């Protein structure tokens, strides 16, 4: 079986023994092809979402993650679905990697009953209980203490797993992150804080929002590691280490250096606070999909033609999934009043007109 040893990019650490970190990663054709598939699928989901949004078929807020795919795919390559995951509203990549189909993802964004949340949540609110994906939080930074709570539950139940808590550089200054970090450190919880640093919190560059932009140091006493997260193998190896560390020692503070190609959300063109050259440069030099594609091609694991066929097929599959989701039924009026409470007990749920209320 062919294996490939790849040198990893340099890392920066805070109160963490850097010699513990791997400097190279071993991978295989099978792995690389899977990473390529998954990352390219996520990118196609985002590109397709963009088109449907612009056609007013996806509503409200929609935050796309293209440019950051290596993180979502790389993280899952280092952990299992028994490890908890929670994030903010830029959550399509995680939803896919935690087991949702493109069809169910699109159906949710189209507000269909076949969506992952029956159309009740939309783009910002994907969840999957069976794969321990806890969303999908729309309030900046609020998922962080909740993620530490998931870590608490894991430790309480003596499970050998970690809670991966994702937030952006913009959220990094929220006070509740510091509160949760202090408790995680005190109680040695298996909480892995993961700052996706894509350089901008909405339209504000990190230097204008953070007095300390070394996000990997912001856990204070919690050891920190900063990596180049456009390299999927670096992400994977870091998560493997984080899992072992988290279960054995407690919290770890990761900074994933990344970049978003799009604006903050669909309503932000994303060019008023940075220039196009900057975006183009990252696309040309740090694209996570291109990195894996080059590993495949340079090592002759597949031909250009084969890669193109795979891309065409994924593109086609994602397009079809969206088109099919479009045809699905919307939630019926009675669904308005369901899921407020469990169905174990009946409660009167009041409707707009009192006469339309129901015991649900």
């Amino acid at each position: 079986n062919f294996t490939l040893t790849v040198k990893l990019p340099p890392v920066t650490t805070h109160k963490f023994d850097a010699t513990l970190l791997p400097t190279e990663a071993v991978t295989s054709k099978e792995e690389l092809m899977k990473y390529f598939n998954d990352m390219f699928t996520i990118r196609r989901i985002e590109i397709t979402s963009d088109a449907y949004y612009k056609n007013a078929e996806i509503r409200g807020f929609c935050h796309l993650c293209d440019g950051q795919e290596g993180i979502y795919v790389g993280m899952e390559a280092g952990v299992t679905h028994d490890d908890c995951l929670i994030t903010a509203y830029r959550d399509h990549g995680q939803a896919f990697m935690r087991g949702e189909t493109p069809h169910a993802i699109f159906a949710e964004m189209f507000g269909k009953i076949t969506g992952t949340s029956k159309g009740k949540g939309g783009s910002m609110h994907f969840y999957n209980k069976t794969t321990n994906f806890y969303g999908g939080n729309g309030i900046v930074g609020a998922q962080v203490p909740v993620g530490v709570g998931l870590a608490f539950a894991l430790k309480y139940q003596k499970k050998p797993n970690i809670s991966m808590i994702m937030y952006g550089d913009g959220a990094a200054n929220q006070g509740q992150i510091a509160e949760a970090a202090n408790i995680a450190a005190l109680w040695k919880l298996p909480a892995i804080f993961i700052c996706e640093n894509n350089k901008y919190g909405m339209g504000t560059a990190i230097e204008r929002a953070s007095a300390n932009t070394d996000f990997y140091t912001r856990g204070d006493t919690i050891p920190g590691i900063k990596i180049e997260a456009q390299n999927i193998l670096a992400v994977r190896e870091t998560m493997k280490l984080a899992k072992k560390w988290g279960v054995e020692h407690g919290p770890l503070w990761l900074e994933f250096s990344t970049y978003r190609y799009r604006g903050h959300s669909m309503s932000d063109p994303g060019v008023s606070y940075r220039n196009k050259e900057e975006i183009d440069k990252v696309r040309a030099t740090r694209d996570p999909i291109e990195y894996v594609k080059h590993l495949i091609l340079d090592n002759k694991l597949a031909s250009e033609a084969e890669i193109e066929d795979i891309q065409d097929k994924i593109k086609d599959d994602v397009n079809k999934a969206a088109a099919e989701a479009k045809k699905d039924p919307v939630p019926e009026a009675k669904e308005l009043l369901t899921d407020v409470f469990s169905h174990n007990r009946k409660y009167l749920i009041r409707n707009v007109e009192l006469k339309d209320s129901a015991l649900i």
Partner: protein
Amino acid sequence: VSMTVKEAINSAMDEEITRDSRVFLIGEEVAQYNGAYKVSKDLWAKHGSNRIWDTPITEAGFTGIAAGASLGGLKPICEFMTFNFAMQSIDHIVNSTAKIRYMSGGKIHGSIVFRGINGPAAGVAAQHSQCFASWYSSVPGLIVLSPYDPEDARGLLKAAIREDEPVVFLENEIMYNKKFDCDDKILDKDFILPIGKAKIMRQGKDITIVAHSRMVGVSLEAAEELAKKGIEAEVINLRTLKPLDTETIINSVKKTNRIVSVEDGWPHGGIGAEICALMMESEAFDYLDAPLERLTSADVPAPYAKSLEEIFTPRAVNVVNACLRVCNK
């Protein structure tokens, strides 16, 4: 003059910042980005970094800082991208600001406006779609304003900024870009509406409809429908939710003998519940020919799907239905 609600808020802030050097705007993306919803467009370019302050995404921090600045003699306009995010910092609105005059025996107080988007919006789901009108209205020491059109927005925001109290100013995203033909008088730099006074938007003798914010428009639409059925509805735009203009509501009910309340907040302990209590506690009770009926959003978190969202908040058809029932028609 033709104006949008957003332009009204923008121009009111612009003029008040120009008028009083103590007034400044603070919030997320309010300066260089011109506001997440472009409400503060051009203010930073015009007034500079000493008057228009971009903050990190740290609601508890900047709200507390704004509160402190108000105690220190400044007059902050503290913008929340939406009031949903003010839940991160509600302690500073309630505990650090609203109560301080009382706690200090009248010695210390803050003059501050907390403003931003409130209420259900379009397609943004449960965490970004919620009305806080009744929450803030329940707090002693807060004034709560809820404009409907550009006249309200300009006149009430200027009043709020000049007021010597903490004011919660609840805007509505769906209304931001609605254009209205307004009386030229609202352009006056000193156009101030009285706090605590409602406005009768439409005169009627058969039934009173009480509403605020976007629901005023829904109620006016319903009143048109009712007129076709021979029912003349009087539509009251509350404008101020705390202190409530009880006099205008009671006088209207004395005339019409019937009342319906409309809001897009939740039913339990809502503004409609307060109006209902007013009917029980005042002489209006003796004039009622039928029980009040409340229209509210359904008692569920805001759904994302359009098919559900459309029936989550009151529509004109619901208001018409309720008015017909209350009129025994």
